[in-house]
């Protein structure tokens, strides 16, 4: 006779409880993971805008909410984190809150989370170059500049991405020259989220009218240098950005072109190089050198770049300087420049009169992101990249201190209320030339800056410095 095994009450209750618990957990998981049915909602916003100096055109954009419905095909199951590199400084300060906003509001719907990655400002582009050469898959989005001519083989061509029906926006709102700066051999490799120029930043409380010509600039600089005017409220009238760093040549180039020199525009690089030992070029460099030697600029200004120049202006020690437009945001911030925030004016680079007409020219150049060719998350990267081309991004970027390359935004009254210097910069952008995007752009400027710096410290005469610069640059360009 077999003995039946009796099931204890504990075992029985435990089994039933386990089954019930499993059903509850499984049901809850199923409910939470259920694909969300979303209604596609498209809102179209049409605005007619005018680009500075160009014809009026119409921009149509669906607002950002639709990006989740049109760019993504259904709700994503897993979130992908992409790394986005940006230029440290005012540019990264401007994009960081937008990335925070994206991560809070858009990452769930798009399935893309964004992590901001920054390198040092001074060597940013060299760092990017190294990463791309090493075929590093990260960052997924790299911030570069119009130096794209040197690194385009390592960037993802964007034309097919933008041509895809999944991309709901338009690139027509950008300043055409700004967008073209990112084209190499007809293909697009980036977008101009930042448009930059250099201008004369001056103390408008000291100078109701800024200097319009080079001679006026020197005269005003002398007037506001304590060595020549003991009553001057500033110690120095001018701050030269003389550090031996390649982009510091831009300030001298603007002065030179405004005096009638050949601009280093795309296609005119050799012509520019050949003109470097012209009387005009030598005269402009001599003015620079004289200003330094006569003490109109601080002695340490041979080692000045962006930060030191800003510090000198913010401390109220210097009356004016040629500086990047990004500095306006910092110098007009009551917290960052409490002494001078309400005293800063902006004007075009001093020029010359031609037939009684004042000619002042500045270069414009652009910075912006591109997609790393070696990224393993291009699809996810492009979702965020598409957002970067929206007017919404551009306006927020402007509000946070960046400076967009979108003509539509610059002419937008809202943008002009956000950034009061836009009307000040409009005449500069209208009378500007595009800096070359030649692959040897950086070495060209490096050679020029090195020689300008040598002239400033007296190691070479201006004539010799420019002659050497011309020889080296022509050798580099094969001209």
């Amino acid at each position, binding site marked *: 006779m077999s003995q039946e095994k009796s099931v204890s009450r504990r075992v029985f209750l435990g089994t039933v409880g386990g089954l019930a618990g499993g059903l509850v957990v499984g049901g809850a998981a199923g409910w939470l993971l259920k694909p969300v049915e979303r209604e596609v909602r498209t809102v179209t916003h049409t605005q007619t805008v005018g680009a500075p100096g160009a014809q009026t055109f119409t921009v149509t954009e669906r607002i950002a909410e639709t990006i989740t419905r049109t760019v993504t095909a259904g709700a994503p199951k897993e979130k992908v984190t992409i790394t986005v590199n940006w230029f440290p400084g005012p540019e990264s300060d401007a994009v960081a809150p937008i990335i925070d906003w994206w991560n809070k509001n858009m990452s769930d719907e798009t399935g893309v989370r964004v992590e901001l990655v920054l390198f040092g400002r001074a060597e940013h582009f060299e760092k990017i170059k190294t990463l791309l050469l090493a075929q590093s898959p990260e960052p997924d989005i790299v911030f570069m500049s119009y130096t794209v001519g*040197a*690194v385009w083989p390592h960037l993802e061509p964007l034309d097919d991405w933008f041509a895809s029906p999944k991309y709901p926006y338009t690139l027509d709102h950008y300043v055409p020259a700004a967008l073209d700066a990112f084209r190499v051999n007809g293909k697009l490799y980036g977008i101009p989220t930042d448009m930059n120029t250099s201008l004369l930043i001056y103390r408008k409380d000291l100078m109701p009218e800024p200097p319009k010509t080079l001679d006026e600039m020197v005269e005003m600089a002398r007037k506001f240098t304590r060595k020549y005017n003991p009553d001057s409220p500033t110690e120095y009238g001018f701050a030269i950005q003389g*550090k031996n760093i*390649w982009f510091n040549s831009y300030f001298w180039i603007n002065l030179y072109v405004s005096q009638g020199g050949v601009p280093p525009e795309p296609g005119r690089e050799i012509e520019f190089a050949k003109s470097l030992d012209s009387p005009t070029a030598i005269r402009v460099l001599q003015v620079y050198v004289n200003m330094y030697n006569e003490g109109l600029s601080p002695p340490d200004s*041979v080692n000045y770049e962006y930060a030191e120049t800003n510090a000198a202006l913010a401390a109220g020690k210097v009356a004016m300087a040629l500086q990047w437009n990004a500095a306006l945001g910092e110098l007009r911030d009551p917290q960052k420049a409490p002494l001078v925030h309400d005293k800063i004016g902006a004007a075009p680079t001093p020029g010359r009169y031609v037939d009684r007409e004042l000619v002042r020219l500045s270069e414009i150049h652009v910075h912006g992101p591109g997609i790393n060719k070696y990224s393993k998350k291009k699809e996810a990267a492009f979702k965020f990249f598409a957002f970067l081309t929206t007017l919404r991004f551009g306006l927020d970027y402007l509000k946070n201190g960046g400076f967009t390359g979108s003509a539509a935004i610059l002419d937008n009254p809202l943008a002009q209320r956000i950034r009061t210097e836009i009307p000040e910069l409009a005449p500069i952008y209208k009378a500007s030339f595009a800096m070359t995007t030649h*692959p040897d752009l950086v070495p060209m400027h*490096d050679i020029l800056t*090195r020689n300008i*710096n040598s002239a400033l410290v007296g190691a070479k005469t201006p004539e010799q410095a420019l002659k050497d610069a011309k020889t080296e640059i022509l050798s580099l360009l094969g001209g």
Partner: protein
Amino acid sequence: MRDQLVGIILVVPMLLTIISITLFPLIFSYYMSVHNMTVLNFWNPIFVGVDNFVKALSSSDFWASVRFSVLYMLVTASAELLLGLFLSLFLERTMKGKRLVVSLILIPMAIAPALFGIMIKLMLNEFIGLIPYLLRQIGIRMHFFSDFPIVFTVLVVTDMIQWTPFVFIILYAALHSLPREPIEAAYIDGASGWQVIRYVKIPMLWKIIALVTVFRVMDALRAFDTIYVLTGGGPGISTTTVSINIFKVALIRGDFGLAAASTVIFFYLSMVVLSFGLRTLRRGGVL
């Protein structure tokens, strides 16, 4: 036999790591130096033989940077050796607060060189820097980045603040490990403090001094970060070291072949200098 095998297996990963981070870059440098290798053709370079070496050897900028690197090495290595030795001898004695003083001396060595350069640059800024401000209070107006002699002094002093602690701590430890008997015997025989240092302690320390000197010479010859942050190699190219020159050629000019050739040339030039140090170390039984 089995123990030997286990030992080899355990050492192999580290060996492979060391080989990959030293041997591979060395071989790749030679490869780059005989090719025209730029950003655009990085993965499809063109063989050019010795062209890059000819360009480097005929470049006035390269030789200017070699001259500056050698000058910088001679001044900083000597100054740091002397100051480090002095500090180690001075702090060898028993005194109150010695531990605190030693800790304070070592702090700069813990800071990243580039960051240290930024700190010094800010402190020396003529408008917002602490040091010019303090100097102005006693009636001295100084500009630290305009003239080469002053700029060079700033660079040397910055290097000394950061790397004298390295010399100090090694010599300090070596002093404490010296046998006491010869020193005590010298005192008993009537030698003065200075005579003990000169005729007993320093001769006993010379191997360590030679080793520390070799380290500092090697480091000073390849100086880059602090100088680049402080001056960018300027004014002009007056403070451009070989490392800065190679960096600019490679990453600003984008000519990796020429940069690699410059690296190879400077490597052999450095070996001439270092061979004296290494020979001394071999004679002393250190190597």
